[in-house]
């Protein structure tokens, strides 16, 4: 599927996740966040960068991992990306939907 955003044409899956991280940039991230009703702050960007780095190192993402190794606490993570933080943040970060149950 194709999606037009921030002047670019992106490849996305049926749930709206980018299928090619190389197509992502900060402007696209900002626009994707707006679609989720989120105005990105520095804290948001720190989390997004952490998720992207973890993804690039093929490290599985989990809520526990955010709390242990991430830049914010689990509580802050839920506050920054309300209602499904890991899914939402991954979508904005341009990485695949996490398959973790925890």
């Amino acid at each position, binding site marked *: 599927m194709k999606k037009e955003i921030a002047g670019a044409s992106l490849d996305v899956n049926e749930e709206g996740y980018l299928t090619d991280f190389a197509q992502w940039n900060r402007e696209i991230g900002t626009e994707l966040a707006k679609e989720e009703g989120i105005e990105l702050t520095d804290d948001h960007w720190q989390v997004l960068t952490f998720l992207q780095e973890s993804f690039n190192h093929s490290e599985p993402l989990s*809520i*526990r*991992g955010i*709390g242990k190794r991430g830049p914010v606490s689990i*509580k802050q993570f*839920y506050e920054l990306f309300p*209602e499904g933080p*890991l*899914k939402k943040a991954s979508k904005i970060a341009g990485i695949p939907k996490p398959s973790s149950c*925890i």
Partner: protein
Amino acid sequence: MSTNEKAAVKKMLLILSKATLDNVYACFILANGARMEGIEAEIFFTFFGLEAIQKKKMERLHVATVGNPAMHIPTMLGGLPGMEGLATSMMKKEMEKLDIPQVPEFLEILSASGAKLWACKLAMEMFHLEKGDLYDDLDGILTVGGFYDRAKGDGTHLMFI
């Protein structure tokens, strides 16, 4: 509003009545998973389920090796001294590999995720427990009626574990 939105799960109320490790984890993973999906989650700890939030007991919960056909060991062997401990430590090792936290840390994650944790008033009286015996970040002590009060609203589901 589409039919799908009408039928969506919005809140999970889980009742934990047992303290075998497998039941406790099933309950915690369902509650945490709900929060990860943006679904509200609350747990009502009653009867033996209270052991999962007792400071003195929460780190020493066991897998049941007797009366558990899925263990695939003869019931008589399951009752031998040390069998429960062995099965439990094996299970904990496997869980750590999957990044599943132990009970005290899991409770902290649930609290931080916004899940609500309630102790059953009647069961506390039955086991002579005080608030101080329980996990510090508990959201409170409720009667059954008080718990049902929390079930108001569309898309609420109750589950007994």
